[in-house]
């Protein structure tokens, strides 16, 4: 009876919460949430005062002048999900019109024109599109520049295409020569380079990859909101307010409204690929990272552990410091540091530059996990009865014989469950390598979900991770059984 009462109370609580929620949602209708990537100056970005400012911001504030406007920074890759799930109402962020976006969202008429230009280091020998052959190209992931470039015929002839989280990273790559070329939005890049006084470090090729239209997106079928925005923009054009805002940000009028016949056809449509090929490719990379990391980190961890038992105090201190640093800082930070940070170390920096992203990632993973394994093995050493090494000593074993024939096999056995645990964690940690531009299972899945708007891919990816972990656990179970030696130690 008591249980029934509790259940009924719970039900009413949940029900009333839902009703209240609906009510508040309706009451807040006078609020507009605009989603944007805050790394896109001058369209929308964080000012020095940590306020979101920009050309698009000013336009939006004007259009929705009677309402409360909230600017919500979002993950640009997930913009379709954000808008279609109703988390945000509008995407207004120098977003180009593509057939794919037209399909997944409702777009306004174009309000701006933008070219995708090619930027190289000022000392680069690259002069035109032809020169891109066998060069490394850096693009902002999910940007129009990225899509346009991948669909351009030259993309099949370049050495590789690196996709990074934002344009600033791409430009850094060009400055450091870790990539040769970047394809970016003209508006964005020019504003950025002029603003930072960096224009002199780069040159812009005369040829462009494509021209595109900037549009504003709302949720599919939300014609009402779309009309509201379009009417607002028309009014701003009439009043000259739009021109004024454009002058403020670009020094010229780039606002473009009346002409709805645009160059959008120049962006070739991306072939609709519903296959799970990207998942398989990602899986392969994930497996490679996992196996290489395990192969390198286990022996390294063991060596660290053995050295830590040495009598040399300096060595002991160094290893202790190493394990503390590796375990006490985020793996993500270590990835950034190894790939982006090492070259900046004075004098030795240039020798520490690892150009290959995959290698840098695996190196970081191996160094990080070695620290964990070293501690696991240390625990194993502590878990072995002192009598074992004494017995070995009395039976005339040398120190090395005692270590390799008596202690290590037992440590291996004791630590198997913990190692298994660590390996399972590693499987999932491999996804972090994407931060330095290596596409793997999770990032490929994310892209696939965004391009197909099919969330099932997340489930598939989840199932794949789960399967890998289950297989691992089974393998370790077998190993444990094999080395059980007839029971407990």
């Amino acid at each position: 009876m008591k249980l029934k009462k509790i259940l009924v109370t719970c039900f009413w609580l949940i029900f009333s919460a839902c009703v209240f929620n609906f009510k508040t949602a309706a009451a807040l209708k006078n609020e507009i949430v605009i989603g944007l990537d805050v790394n896109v100056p001058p369209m929308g970005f964080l000012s020095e005062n940590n306020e979101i400012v920009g050309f698009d911001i000013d336009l939006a504030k004007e259009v929705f002048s009677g309402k409360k406007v909230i600017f919500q920074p979002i993950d640009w890759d997930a913009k379709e999900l954000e808008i279609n799930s109703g988390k945000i109402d509008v995407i207004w962020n120098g977003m180009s019109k593509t057939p794919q976006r037209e399909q997944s969202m409702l777009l306004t008429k174009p309000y701006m024109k933008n070219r995708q230009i090619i930027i190289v280091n000022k000392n680069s020998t690259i002069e035109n599109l032809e020169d891109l052959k066998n060069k490394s190209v850096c693009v902002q992931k999910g940007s129009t520049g990225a899509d346009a470039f991948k669909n351009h015929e030259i993309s099949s002839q370049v050495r590789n295409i690196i996709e990074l989280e934002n344009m600033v990273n791409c430009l850094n790559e060009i400055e450091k020569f870790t990539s040769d070329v970047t394809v970016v939005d003209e508006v964005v890049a020019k504003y950025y380079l002029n603003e930072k006084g960096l224009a002199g470090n780069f040159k812009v090729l005369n040829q462009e990859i494509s021209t595109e239209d900037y549009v504003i997106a709302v949720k599919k079928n939300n014609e009402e909101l779309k009309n509201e925005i379009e009417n607002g923009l028309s009014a701003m054009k009439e009043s000259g307010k739009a021109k004024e805002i454009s002058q403020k940000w670009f020094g010229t009028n780039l606002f473009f409204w009346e002409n709805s016949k645009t160059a959008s056809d120049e962006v070739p449509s991306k072939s609709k690929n519903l296959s799970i090929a990207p998942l398989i490719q990602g899986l392969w990379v994930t497996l490679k990272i996992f196996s290489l990391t395990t192969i390198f980190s286990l022996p390294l961890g063991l060596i660290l552990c053995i050295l830590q038992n040495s009598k040399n105090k300096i060595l002991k201190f160094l290893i202790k410091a190493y394990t503390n640093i590796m375990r006490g800082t985020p793996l993500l930070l270590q990835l950034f540091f190894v790939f982006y940070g090492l070259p900046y170390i004075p004098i030795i920096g240039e020798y520490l530059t690892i150009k290959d992203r995959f290698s840098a990632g695996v190196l970081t993973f191996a160094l990080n996990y070695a620290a964990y394994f070293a501690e696991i093995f240390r625990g194993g050493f502590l878990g072995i009865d002192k009598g074992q090494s004494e017995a070995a000593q009395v039976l005339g074993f040398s120190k090395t014989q005692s270590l390799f024939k008596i202690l290590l096999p037992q440590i291996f056995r004791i630590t198997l469950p913990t190692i298994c645990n660590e390996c399972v964690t590693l499987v999932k940690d491999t996804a972090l390598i994407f931060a330095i531009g290596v596409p793997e299972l999770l990032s490929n899945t994310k892209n696939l979900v965004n391009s197909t708007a099919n969330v099932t891919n997340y489930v598939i990816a989840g199932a794949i991770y789960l399967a890998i972990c289950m297989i691992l656990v089974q393998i370790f179970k077998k190993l444990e059984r094999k080395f059980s030696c007839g029971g407990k130690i």
Partner: protein
Amino acid sequence: MKTIETVNLCKNFGGKEILKNINFSAQNGEITAITGKSGEGKTTFLRCLAGLEKIDSGSIKIEDNCLVKDGIYVKNTSKILKKVGLIFQNFNLFPHLTVKENIEIPALNAKMYETRAIFDVSQKLLKQFKLENVQNSFPSNLSGGQKQRAAIARALILNPDIILFDEPTSSLDPELVEELTEIIKKLSKQNYTILIVTHDTGFANQTADRILALKDGDLPAV
């Protein structure tokens, strides 16, 4: 002939004198039992003789070789200590190796004979200590008596002259104690010098040729 001899052996632990001026010797074929309450330093004495603890002053002579002379250890102690075998109280068998492997591994490490000869010797020992049936079992599956016999066999494969037993009856059922007495007596007939540390006076009376009592860090001179 004296196979083991200590002169004025002293051992301190954290500033406390555990063993004071111990003068002791034992001969081939002789079974000596050292009794005393726990904490008196019986086991420490045994561990000093086996080289697991370093003494602070005094001398230890094994056969005709000095292991320690006036508190100073010789350089190559391992060669001298080969003559001493120690059976631990909890046997310390290697849990990841089978009984057979446990017995063979010291000889294989030391490369005492050719590998095949080592296998022959281990078979003999397995037979002698009634371990043939369990030779491929791991220690965790053995009874206390089997574990002890395996530990003895493992010590014997290195051909020691002196065998030290640390509390050998502590994990044995009463009926197995008799069997142990027999095993030890047989070993003494084979001319091994045997030193047993035990608190079990009944077992000591049954087994030993002479019994010494360790008290207040002193062992009455023989």
